[in-house]
């Protein structure tokens, strides 16, 4: 039920948006998509745009996480896996 599908907004007309899901296009409810316009990436759930998807943020956060993983992996002491 909570499966959100990422897509890209092609057209916006009132409360309805045409969204491209990697080649498949569907009309979805855009009444709760404040500040979202054509060209934006979005997450659609049960036929409603629930949120914007920010691919750049995905890369930024991944970079930050990588630093943490690297730090934790390089800590001294006994790894203790066995």
């Amino acid at each position, binding site marked *: *039920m909570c499966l959100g599908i990422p897509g890209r907004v092609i057209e916006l007309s009132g409360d309805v948006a045409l969204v491209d899901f990697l080649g498949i296009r569907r009309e979805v409810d855009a009444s709760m998509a404040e500040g979202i316009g054509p060209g934006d990436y979005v997450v659609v759930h049960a036929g409603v745009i629930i949120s914007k998807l920010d691919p750049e943020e995905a890369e930024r956060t991944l970079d930050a996480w990588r630093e943490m993983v690297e730090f934790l992996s390089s800590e001294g002491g006994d790894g203790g896996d066995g």
Partner: protein
Amino acid sequence: MGEESPIKRVERLYRSSEEVRSVVGAIWKVAPQAAEAAGVDRVKIMDFCGTHEWTITHFGLRSLMPPQVELVAGPGCPVCITPGYYVDAAASLARDGVRVLTYGDAYRLQGTPRGTETDSLARARSEGAPVEVVYSVMDAVRRARGDGVESVFLAVGFETTAPATASPVTRGAVPENLTFINVHRLTPPITRYVFERVPGAPILGVIAPGHVSAITGAAAWEFVPRDYGIPAVVTGFEPLDVVLAVLEMLRQLREGRPRLVNEYSRVVSWEGNLAAKRAIERCCEVVDSAWRGIGFVEESGLAFRREFSRVDAAERYGLREPSPEDWSRDLPPGCRCAEVTLGAAKPTDCPMFMKVCTPGTPYGPCMVSQEGACSVWARYGGGGRAEEVARELGLI
């Protein structure tokens, strides 16, 4: 080579086995220290959402965890926890000639157990009653408006799905001939219920639901560290998202500083979808509601406000809230779905699992929905089967 779509690129990055391996390496390192700091042999982390359980099982993440980490499924399957009473009511309306529209997962859900007479919308339809599966509420509204047929929409789902119902209701876009059976439920109250009322080893971390949080905002989970001293991470649905969340929670446990982190910031903001929250608030009030096999949970459901009673199927057809008698016999004999839902039992702990209860012939509700923990384990192999195979092959 064509340019890669940013959507595909994010998917590729967050499914990279190299990245996942490096995070898993750090998890193996931190887990013993986290368990020691928490004073337990195994750190029990609960995923709330059925889609997280799918990610964990489908990608075999459970078998990558060190012995100090246990990942358990939580209550995040809205179809599994929808009381059978509402299925009975919808199937009965369909038999009376009212067209019933619903989402695919709810179509096969069983009603209140009555031996071989247990009802479902699929059964009603096989007998010729008007039942249709639709993709969205928008499709249901269009369908009802287009042909004028008296229709009821069985509206199941958590905060993620409630906006789909609230949208046409608050915009005055629901035609006269369409009403809703409102079975929407809220996720923070059942999480509190798990912490406070479910016996057994304590949950020490929560993989908070990403798409629920897209609506509620990550802030909705602040109560987990604040009131219970438990780490919580709002998490995306790719394998890398889940292992990062596990690592973050172990790190917090090791340091004894539980807090809320939003790992899924590419989709979830701190405050959530304000338009959706406004629409839900305008359309519905928060009420005590029944959860299948569990019972009433305080302030855990939504009901239409008086102002919108015209769209309320409960008003139009005189449906009532299920009584304690209804929910006390809401699961078939021997079915452990309620315990599975609350993280107190694994699907493989149930003697029915993959014997009388299979995805083709589901006996209990957790085997019906694609997101039910039993269905996920049946299709992708939970319960440590991958671990057993790996051990036999000398890989671990």
